């Protein structure tokens, strides 16, 4: 173990985490808003209020939408009201249309209505706000909905998992990009490789593994094949760079075009969707403590990458090559092989990213991954990796990826318009890197 870190050192290494925490706090504050409770607890509140408002023999309509928890709400309200002697005329779980039908039935039967016990969402339907004018013969029923509570949308666990799931592809591809950038290179082909991999995996499953009835083995084979092809493309780039000394920018720019073109050719410009439902396991399943599988994979990969960079000889070599390739070569580092490894790894991880995206969207399309290379590079750079090579951290990249995801998600939650989002994202990337420079005291250099 290294010596315990001093706070200043810690801040210097992981200052971006602080930025991320600040961003989270900011978005929590601005998305602090009313939430609509449902389920058992909300049901208890509503029953109590109905009995208080109409103590004896209330004639009640119970309404819930079809959100998760709403069926429980409706069942519980109906049961408890009946137990307390109230009359439940109907219990509706569904759409506004179902509520209207129930109201029409009650009106047709000539009955009156004392109260409507509804979830907040259902209570907001127009069918109830216009109740007095549309159904005058029902009397003037009380609308009773559970009390709302306030909590940031941003901090809801479903949103936090949402963010992690949304960034999984970019964050995973960014591992490979970090390796490449640490060696002083760049890989522009990753976006196209995401598309190529998604198309290859989906195409293999459709054409070779039996389409919608493909077996698990067939799907795994298709995914592995796609990832390996992308690894081979990365290897090809690496060879061009190491054997012919073509600048990485040029080589990977060419491979970006080749990869994208191949994806369009293979998919014939269409999205490939004839794949089994179970294919979404990787992208949308959540088997371990409710964590999405893609996020688990992400964490495992980052742990491995961290070990590689900080505990293994290869990691040291990567830094050495990026710091000064000539010095590294003279001290016996196999520079070419190290570089080749970085590009192969980047290709493989881009392939994996493509497979995850295909799984999330249950289809493969050549339009996937468009501009992703730029987001991935942004994540790496925001994470504190220097584009001139030789320095950078995996945890930094992970923080960078999450910073970008949090900004995008936060702006979607706070109703920021698309054009403005681009401007803000660009400025934040710039700001983060500036802050990083400032923190390292290199401003004036």
């Amino acid at each position: 173990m290294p010596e315990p870190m001093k706070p200043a050192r810690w801040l210097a290494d992981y200052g971006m985490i602080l930025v991320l925490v600040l961003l989270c706090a900011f978005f929590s504050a601005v998305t602090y808003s009313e939430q609509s409770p449902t389920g058992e607890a909300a049901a208890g509140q509503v029953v109590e209020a109905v009995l208080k408002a109409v103590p004896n023999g209330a004639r009640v309509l119970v309404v819930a939408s079809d959100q998760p928890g709403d069926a429980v709400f409706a069942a519980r309200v109906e049961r408890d009201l009946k137990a307390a002697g109230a009359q439940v005329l109907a219990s509706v779980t569904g759409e506004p249309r179902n509520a209207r039908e129930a109201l029409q039935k009650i009106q047709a039967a000539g009955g009156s209505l004392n109260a409507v016990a509804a979830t907040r969402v259902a209570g907001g339907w127009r069918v109830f706000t216009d109740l007095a004018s549309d159904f005058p013969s029902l009397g003037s029923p009380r609308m009773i909905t559970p009390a709302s509570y306030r909590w940031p949308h941003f901090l809801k666990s479903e949103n936090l998992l949402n963010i992690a799931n949304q960034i999984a592809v970019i964050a995973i591809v960014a591992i490979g990009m970090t390796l490449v950038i640490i060696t002083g290179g760049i890989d522009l082909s990753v976006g196209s490789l995401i598309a190529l991999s998604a198309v290859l995996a989906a195409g293999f499953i459709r054409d070779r593994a039996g389409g919608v009835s493909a077996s698990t083995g067939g799907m795994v084979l298709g995914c592995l094949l796609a990832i390996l092809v992308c690894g081979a493309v990365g290897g090809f780039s690496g060879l061009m760079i190491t054997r012919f000394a073509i600048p990485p920018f040029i080589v990977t720019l060419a491979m970006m075009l080749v990869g994208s073109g191949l994806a369009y050719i293979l998919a014939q410009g269409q999205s490939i969707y004839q794949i089994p439902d179970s294919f979404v396991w990787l992208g949308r399943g959540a088997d371990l403590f409710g964590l999405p599988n893609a996020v688990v994979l992400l964490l495992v990969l980052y742990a491995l990458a961290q070990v590689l960079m900080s505990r293994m000889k290869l990691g040291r070599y990567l830094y050495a090559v990026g710091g000064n390739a000539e010095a590294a070569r003279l001290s016996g580092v196999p520079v070419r092989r190290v570089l080749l490894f970085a590009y192969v790894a980047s290709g493989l991880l881009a392939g994996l990213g493509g497979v995850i995206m295909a799984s999330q969207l249950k289809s493969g399309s050549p339009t996937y991954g468009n501009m992703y290379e730029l987001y991935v590079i942004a994540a790496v750079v925001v994470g504190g990796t220097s584009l001139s090579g030789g320095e950078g951290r995996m945890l930094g990249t992970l923080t960078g990826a999450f910073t970008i995801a949090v900004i995008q998600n936060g702006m979607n939650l706070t109703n920021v318009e698309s054009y403005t989002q681009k401007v803000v994202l660009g400025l934040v990337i710039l700001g983060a890197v500036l802050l990083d420079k400032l923190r390292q005291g290199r401003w004036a250099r």
Partner: protein
Amino acid sequence: MKYFQRALMACLLALLGGCGDKAVDSSQPAASASKVQGTIGVSLLTLDNPFFKVIGDSITAEGKKHGYETVVVSGDKDVAKQGNQIKDFIVKKVSAIVLSPCDSKSIIPVIQEANAAGIPVFTVDIPCNEPGVKIVTQIATDNEGGGREAGQAMIEALGEAGGKIAVLHFKQAESCQLRVKGFMEVIRAHNAGGKSKIDVVTELESGAAKDLGYKAAEDALQAHPDLRGIFAINDPAALGARAALEKASKTQVLIIGFDGQPEGKQAIKDGKIYADPIQFPDQMGVRMVDAILRHSKGETLPAQMLIPTRLYRKSDAQKDPTLH
């Protein structure tokens, strides 16, 4: 480190403190129009195209009249991005989601998520007629009817002589397939009955954009120097084609466009495009908010609502006060 953790806990506790009031409000069923009814989340194919921008703006304006707040985002033709936007709408628990899918196949799982969260989903312009998804209604231009209008305009433009024409297509979009289908139907009917044959000699990909429309028209002119007409599936492609005609000094070739965007209308007024079947994106927005309201009131809506196009010629453009 401990200090830092404590500070974080304190922040969290402060946030938690704000919630947990246990009262139940029971409002009277009085009609209340002024208060905010909820949010409409709109994710459109792109906002680069004025057509979608107008749809978004008109949903926002019309929604405001009925007490809805509207968020309009652009999917930028990237279905993964659009998927994330929809997921964020679901987390926000918006009252309704309106989208024009970037890819009607790949968006299925995301729509299913919205369905499971009990949020009604509406589509505008681009449909998603896939099994397993629940769409309240689809609002779009009657593209096939518009294509037929374009066909009639072409016959009218070429007159007695007939001749060779090119179609600048955008095959990825179902709407454009319908336009060309309607167009070809009319042209075929004309050829079957009439003497002046109209010959569709080439069908090129225009990308529904100016630059690619330009290239496609250039290539069409190289292959068929005696071309007399071009049908472009939207205004950008038509304007790109016009630029190619001007470059080749072949402005006698007549163009029929589609859309009726301001730039296209201006080109019609200037005689650069012969005519456009025009769409009404503003009406689409108004109809969309109406559909959301009607759904919320419990009405059953038809699966599809088509808005007819209208043929817009130079004479219409001269009367149009929005042009100069």
